[in-house]
Each structure stands twice: as structure tokens, then as C-alpha cells.
């Protein structure tokens, strides 16, 4: 199963480098690969439809329970098929759409890279590999949204989406870790799902839910993190169609579906998802109606639809999940078609604003057909799949026992009415109205660019006519994946007879017409600028920047001694807290000072004390250097006394080297500048605090870790496992070699920093 992900990533690399020269061949190869992958996924369909699950695992970090393991069940197969089939259509569309662009190879490469990450995400059976792919989708969508990087708006949108989704990703990571701690079950999703009640009893339950929900909300553009999605419309149209209708924004939805069995029945989970989803749904639908740019309209309706998914998951229950699965598919079909059609319109007419468009039904008949079919599905007109989906949603909410269900139903009705109004506006104004574009020589888009949206729109019609035959089996098992204990219950029919739900559907359309007629009034409503999420995002960013500037100005003021004082002070404060907290554990023994004091220890003490006193008397840097040498060597002597030869040697050498280095640069240093008594007191305080903190820490550590397991482990195993008798060195180069590697890397970085500092020519303002 992992080969399909490898294949997509390989295709991404190949197309990024080979597309320019062999575009036809590479394109054909990619199409064949994707067809092969789709075929491979379909080949599992009979097994999945028996309710089976396929798991394949590659070891990654076995000691931490982290693997590249993949799970194919109804849910992941449904999403994987959605992504690959859409990916194929979008690939063929972009092949044509980007035909004139010199950047096409990179574009196709990014697109496939994103697709590979997305397939990896939905197939992952390990939380960590899921997280990895999750971040890869954020990263690749950054590249895709910012594809027109010469455009300021695109750069800003890309940055924004990365900040929001990757920030949410951090929360998600923390949530996953809490989840694995809480269940004690590692990161394996299959194991987690096998014991769904394990998390309920954990003290981390609510924190985990909150963090995971934030991850899903940011990714799936839920209120109040929705603002990045409309801005991301700066991306090329195929990207919008792929990322923002079918796949990336559904990653969050997939995640909450996947984890729903773990959290079902927890009030926080139900209400958090339900209310956030309901707010997003209503707000998105309302905002969609106020836009003029077709892509922004579609973006807001997408936000609204995502809200529906979250709301229904929050409501819970198998019937609600059944309904939402149908709507996920319906939404992907109509929204993908609409985005691609919007791309056609944009490319052929040069504008996407509805107020500038007219007459398109005559000029671009096939695109118009796709738009009419898919908007009808969006509005929920019989007999499209959107109608089936909306009916199921209404039905599930109407019969649900949760106390919020009727409120949700009302809001869903409102959102549906807005969808209808948006549909009317698009069709009547852009396609049927006779207007300014009548005389323009606008042609229909090329074949491949018409094919993809038309195909999706017709699929929405066909599956709506025969939902039971076409999509029910897969959707049934996708929904059943959330309720592994119960048998699947989905039964899709176009016509349920005359009942209250049908009446609601009809009323939705009527209300939509009413809203459409009232559009002037709605579009006149003004939202105060300080309530716009985008404005608040900007405020957050500039606040962060001013904080950074403030801290840089105060902390890094150019005085080296100030830097050191701050570091020492921070360190001491951090040390003091745990020391004070655990003070009961280390009462000072009364005979502590008098025990076994040897003569050479006294000698070392006297050396150091006199050196320190002398240090305060002198004003010459040479004397200070020499005195420091005395202190350093005395400490090295102390190490020898306390039988730590390795440390002692290192200390002697480091002391020697420091002395040599100091002497080399001594004549270049300025004379003593610290003359004011107040400054001396300031630094003296910091030094005393630091010294005291270190002394107490050393004392506590000596009295605490008498029976440390580590000490025994290293001493016992250094010969047998590390093949050396010097345990210190074995620790350095074997047991804790990773730490050493980190340290020598830091050493290198320091060297690079010093090179930078010393070879830097002072900047002269006059050139």
C-alpha cells in the first residue's frame, strides 16, 4: 500500500524535472500511474465491502511505537478514492490550464506532492505518520497558494494559510501525544480504535479533545480560523478546486471522522464540534451571498459546507454520519466542478466578478451546463446528489434526540436557503443576463478544461438519480468505519415519498428565492472592520512583530555583559523555582560542613577564595585573566581530588586554551568601562544570585541522586555493550552519542557565528 504514496511522490519529482521537455510523455505517464493507483484501490473494494480492514506496516522508530503503517477501511478508501480520482481530473485540467505558463513543471510537481501527502494522510494508521503527512499538506499547499509569487496578495495568502494551518498542526501534535499518553496505547490508530473507551477515563481527555479540535478547525477553516480559505483563492484555479474543495480542507473532517469513535459521547467533543460547525455553516453561507468574486463565493460556501460536516459529527449517531458521508461526496462533486468552471470563466473572460459577467450561457455552453448542473446540486434540487445529501441531513437532524438538533436544523435550513440564493445569483447574473459581454468574442474553454467539470457535474446527477446503486455501498462502509460495532445502516433513495423532510427541502428553495429577491438589503449590511477575522489576524501579526522588536531592543542592546547577565539571571530564576518547590526533600544535615574535610580540599578552597577576593581589587585585564586562570585550575584540581579524571583533564585543557586565547586578544580589548558603583552592584547581585543557585543545585544533586539507576546502568554496561572501560567516554561516544552529535553541531554553529562576528566589517553609513 505504501508503494502508491511512493509512486505519487516519485511522480511529483519526475514531473518537476521532466515536464518541460517531455510534457506529453510525462503527462501520459502520470495519468497512467494515477489510473493504476485508482485501479489498485478499487481492487480492495470487494474486501472492504465485506467490512474488512487491510493494514500494512513499515517500521520506522519501533522503540517509540512510531511506524509508517497504513490502514485501508471504508473511510480511508472513500477518501483515498476521492483524492486520487479528483487528482486525476485536476491533473488533466491543469495540464491544459497551465499550458502557456513557463512554471507548469513546478506546478504539476507541487500538485502531485500535495496529492501524495494527502493520500498518505488518509491512509495513515499511525498518529505520527498521519501528523507528518498533515504537515506536508500544509507545506505543499503553501507552495501552491503562493504559486503566483510575484503577486503580493498570493504571497500574503500563502503565508497566512501556512501560519494558521501549521500553527494548528502544533496543537494537533500535542493532542496526539496526550492521546497516546492518555490511552497508554502508543500511536497506532487501529489499536486506539479497538479500545474506544480507553480515552474516556483519562485525565487528559478534555485537553486532547481541545488540541485535536484546534488542529482540525484550522485545517478545515472553521470559525474563527476560516479567514485563510477565501484569501487562498489567490492560488491558480486547479489548486483551489483540488485543495479547497475535495482534499486539503477535508483533512480536518477526515481526522474528526477517524477519531470520532474515541470521543463519542463526551460532551465537550459533541458541543465543541457541533456549535463551531453550526456557527461556521451559517456565517459562511451568509458571507458567500455577499461576495462578488465567484471564487470567493465558492470559498465561503466551502467553509459553510465544512461547517455542516463538523456540526453533524458533533451531533453524532450513525444516521447523522451516514448523512454527512453522502454530503461529503455531493459537496466534492459539485464544488470541484464549480471551481473548475470558475477557472474556465476566469481564463476566457479575464474576470471572476459576477457584476462584470453576463451572457455566458451562450458564449460558453458546456461550462454553463456544468455550472447549472452543479449549482443545482448545491442548492439541493431534486434529482441531484446534493438533494439526496440534504434530505439525509434534514432527516437525521429531525429525528435526532440531542437537545441542539432542532436548532441545528433551523440553521441548516437557513444555510440551505443562502446556498439557493447564491445559486440563483450565479446562474441568473453570470450566465443568463443579457449584458455587457454580449458583443465580446468569448470562446468556450479547450476540451480538457471542459471535460473535467462537466464530468463531475454529470456524476452529481447520475449518482443522485441512482444513489442506491452507485455510491451507497462505499459510503455505507465509510460511515460504518466510525461505528465498527454496529452493522451498516445506510439506505439511500432519491424519493422517500411526501413527508415533512421533503416539505423542508422545498421550503428551503422557496426561502432561497426570497433571500435572492431581498439581496440588496442583505448585501447592504456592513460588518465593522474590527470584527473581521482577517483584520484581527493582521493585528496579531503586527503585535508579534512589535513584541519581537521590543524584546530585541531591550535584551540585545549590544553590551555583551548585559547579554550574559540576562542569561545568568534567567537561568538562576529557572533554577530557584524547582529548588523552592522541592525544599522539603533536602534538609541540610547538621554536621554537613565538618564531615571528612581533607587538607587538599581546604587548599583548593583557600586558592579560590583568595583569587575571588583579589579579582575585585584589580582594574587590569591581564591580572583578571591570570586570576581567572587560578580559579579554573583550582577547580580542575578539585575534580582530580574527587576522582573525575576526564572532567579534570578537560577542565585543565579548556582553562589553558581560554588563557591563550584571552592573551592573544588582550591587547585589543578596551580598558575597563564599568566604573559607576551602581553598575557594579547590579552585576554583583546577578553574580551572587547565580552563584548561590548553582551552589544549592550542586548540593541538592549530590544529596539526592545517591541511588540513581543511570549510574549503575552505565557502569554495568559500558564494558559489555560499549566495549570500553572508561564509562565517561563510552557515554559520550556510544550511549549518548546523539547528545554529543548535537553538541559538536552546536560547536560548529558557534564557530560559524564567530567567523561571522570577527570577519564582519563595521557598517559604514556613507558609501
Amino acid at each position: 500500500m505504501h508503494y502508491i504514496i511512493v509512486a505519487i511522490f516519485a511522480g511529483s519529482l519526475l514531473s518537476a524535472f521532466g515536464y518541460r521537455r517531455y510534457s506529453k510523455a510525462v503527462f501520459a505517464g502520470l495519468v497512467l500511474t494515477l489510473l493504476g493507483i485508482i485501479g489498485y484501490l478499487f481492487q480492495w473494494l470487494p474486501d472492504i465491502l465485506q467490512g474488512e480492514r487491510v493494514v500494512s506496516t513499515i517500521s520506522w522508530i519501533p522503540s517509540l511505537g512510531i511506524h509508517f503503517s497504513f490502514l485501508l477501511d471504508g473511510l480511508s478508501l472513500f477518501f483515498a478514492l476521492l483524492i486520487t480520482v479528483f487528482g486525476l481530473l485536476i491533473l488533466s485540467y491543469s495540464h491544459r490550464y497551465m499550458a502557456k505558463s513557463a512554471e507548469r513543471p513546478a506546478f504539476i510537481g507541487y500538485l502531485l506532492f500535495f496529492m501524495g501527502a494527502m493520500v498518505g494522510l488518509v491512509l495513515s494508521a499511525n498518529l505520527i505518520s498521519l501528523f507528518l503527512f498533515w504537515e506536508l499538506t500544509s507545506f505543499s499547499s503553501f507552495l501552491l497558494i503562493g504559486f503566483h509569487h510575484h503577486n503580493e496578495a498570493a504571497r500574503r495568502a500563502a503565508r497566512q494559510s501556512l501560519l494558521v494551518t501549521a500553527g494548528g498542526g502544533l496543537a494537533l501534535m500535542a493532542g496526539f501525544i496526550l492521546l497516546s499518553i492518555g490511552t497508554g496505547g502508543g500511536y497506532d490508530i487501529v489499536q486506539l480504535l479497538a479500545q474506544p473507551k480507553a480515552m474516556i477515563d483519562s485525565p487528559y481527555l478534555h485537553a486532547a479533545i481541545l488540541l485535536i479540535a484546534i488542529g482540525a478547525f484550522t485545517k478545515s477553516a472553521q470559525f474563527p480560523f476560516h479567514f485563510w480559505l477565501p484569501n487562498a483563492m489567490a492560488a491558480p484555479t486547479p489548486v483551489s478546486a483540488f485543495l479547497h474543495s475535495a482534499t486539503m480542507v477535508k483533512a480536518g473532517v477526515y481526522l474528526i471522522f477517524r477519531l470520532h469513535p474515541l470521543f463519542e459521547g463526551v460532551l465537550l467533543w459533541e458541543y465543541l464540534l457541533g456549535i463551531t460547525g453550526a456557527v461556521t455553516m451559517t456565517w459562511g453561507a451568509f458571507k458567500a451571498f455577499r461576495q462578488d468574486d465567484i471564487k470567493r463565493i465558492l470559498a465561503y460556501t466551502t467553509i459553510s459546507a465544512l461547517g455542516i460536516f463538523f456540526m453533524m459529527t458533533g451531533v453524532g449517531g450513525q444516521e447523522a454520519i451516514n448523512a454527512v458521508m453522502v454530503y461529503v461526496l455531493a459537496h466534492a462533486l459539485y464544488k470541484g466542478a464549480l471551481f473548475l468552471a470558475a477557472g474556465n470563466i476566469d481564463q476566457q473572460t479575464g474576470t471572476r466578478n459576477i457584476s462584470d459577467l453576463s451572457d455566458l450561457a451562450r458564449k460558453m455552453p458546456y461550462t454553463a451546463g456544468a455550472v447549472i448542473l452543479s449549482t443545482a446540486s448545491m442548492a439541493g434540487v431534486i434529482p441531484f446528489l446534493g438533494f439526496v445529501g440534504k434530505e439525509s441531513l434534514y432527516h437525521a437532524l429531525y429525528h435526532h434526540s440531542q437537545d441542539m438538533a432542532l436548532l441545528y436544523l433551523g440553521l441548516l435550513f437557513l444555510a440551505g436557503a443562502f446556498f439557493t440564493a447564491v445559486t440563483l445569483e450565479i446562474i441568473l447574473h453570470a450566465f443568463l443576463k443579457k449584458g455587457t459581454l454580449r458583443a465580446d468574442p468569448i470562446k468556450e474553454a479547450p476540451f480538457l478544461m471542459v471535460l473535467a467539470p462537466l464530468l463531475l457535474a454529470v456524476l452529481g446527477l447520475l449518482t443522485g438519480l441512482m444513489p442506491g446503486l452507485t455510491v451507497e455501498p462505499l459510503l455505507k462502509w465509510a460511515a460504518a468505519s466510525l461505528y465498527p460495532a454496529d452493522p451498516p445502516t445506510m439506505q439511500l433513495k432519491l424519493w422517500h415519498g411526501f413527508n415533512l423532510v421533503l416539505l423542508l427541502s422545498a421550503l428551503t428553495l422557496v426561502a432561497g428565492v426570497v433571500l435572492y429577491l431581498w439581496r440588496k438589503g442583505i448585501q447592504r449590511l456592513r460588518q465593522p472592520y474590527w470584527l473581521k477575522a482577517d483584520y484581527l489576524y493582521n493585528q496579531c501579526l503586527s503585535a508579534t512583530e512589535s513584541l519581537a522588536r521590543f524584546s530585541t531592543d531591550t535584551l540585545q542592546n549590544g553590551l555583551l555583559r548585559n547579554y550574559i547577565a540576562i542569561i545568568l539571571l534567567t537561568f538562576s530564576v529557572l533554577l530557584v523555582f524547582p529548588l523552592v518547590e522541592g525544599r522539603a526533600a533536602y534538609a541540610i544535615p547538621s554536621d554537613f560542613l565538618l564531615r571528612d574535610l581533607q587538607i587538599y580540599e581546604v587548599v583548593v578552597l583557600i586558592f579560590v577564595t583568595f583569587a575571588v577576593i583579589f579579582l575585585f581589587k584589580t582594574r587590569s585585564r591581564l591580572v583578571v585573566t591570570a586570576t581567572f586562570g587560578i580559579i579554573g585550575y583550582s577547580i580542575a584540581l578539585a575534580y582530580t581530588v574527587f576522582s573525575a579524571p576526564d572532567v579534570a583533564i578537560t577542565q585543565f585543557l579548556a582553562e589553558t586554551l581560554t588563557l591563550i586565547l584571552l592573551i592573544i586578544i588582550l591587547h585589543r580589548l578596551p580598558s575597563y568601562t564599568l566604573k559607576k558603583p551602581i553598575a557594579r552592584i547590579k552585576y554583583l547581585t546577578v553574580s551572587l544570585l547565580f552563584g548561590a543557585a548553582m551552589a544549592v543545585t550542586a548540593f541538592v544533586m549530590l544529596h539526592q541522586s545517591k541511588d540513581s539507576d543511570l549510574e549503575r546502568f552505565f557502569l554495568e554496561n559500558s564494558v559489555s555493550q560499549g566495549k570500553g572501560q572508561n564509562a565517561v567516554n563510552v557515554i559520550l561516544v556510544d550511549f549518548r552519542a546523539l547528545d554529543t552529535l548535537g553538541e559538536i553541531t552546536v560547536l560548529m554553529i558557534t564557530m560559524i557565528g564567530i567567523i561571522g562576528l570577527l570577519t564582519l566589517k563595521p557598517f559604514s553609513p556613507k558609501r
Partner: protein
Amino acid sequence: MKTLILSTLLKVLTPLFIGFALYMFFRGHNNPGGGFIAGLIASIPFMLHAMVFGYEGTTRVFKIKPKLLASIGLLLALVSGLFSVFNGQPFMSPIWIEETVPLIGKIGTPIFFDLGVFLVVFGVVLQITFLLTEE
């Protein structure tokens, strides 16, 4: 800083220090010593040399490129940990050759790691010295 005593002494001290550094390096696994300490010791004669003869004088006599040495060291340390990965074990698991080599003892990836540490320490210290002695 021309001092006759130090410059004469350096002719004797340099090989002595390097020999001692190598000795410290190889005994490190069983007795006090090791790559870090050996790196520091090995850099001392060159530091003194740079102190006496200056950057130009030292680089004319010893064709050392400390930056390069340090980079090679870091790479070596990293690569020594990668051997086990290709062997199917976690990163940085030690691999030992069974036979013992006279004078050196057992050979395994930790020795290369330690050599990497040696080179990094040696290179970094010398680089800093050279920068400071450069006029």
C-alpha cells in the same frame, strides 16, 4: 609576539603534543582521554605557534584548513551513526569488528564518531585562534 624561547621550544613541543594527543585519543575508551580531550591537546601547539608567528606564519608552515577539518569531523560523526541504519538498526547503534587490532584495540563505529569529535574540536579551536591572530 616574538619570543625566542617559545619559538625554539615549539619545534620540540609540536610533535610531542600531537603524539600525546593521539595517545590520549586511543586510550580514551578504557582510560581517561577521548576525542574531545585529544582535540584540545592537539590544538595547543598550533595555538602557541599562531601566537608567536601570527596567522600568516602559521598557515605558511602548516597547511591546515580548520573550517574544512571541522566540517569533515561533523560529517564523519554523522556518517558513523548512519552505518547501523543501513544495517536495519536504529540510528547510532554501534557496530564493532570482532578482531582486535594491535595497539589500537577493537575497531567500531564509535571510534569514527570519536574521530569526528576530535576533528570538530580541533578545527573549531584553531579556526577561532586563526581568526583572532589574523591582523
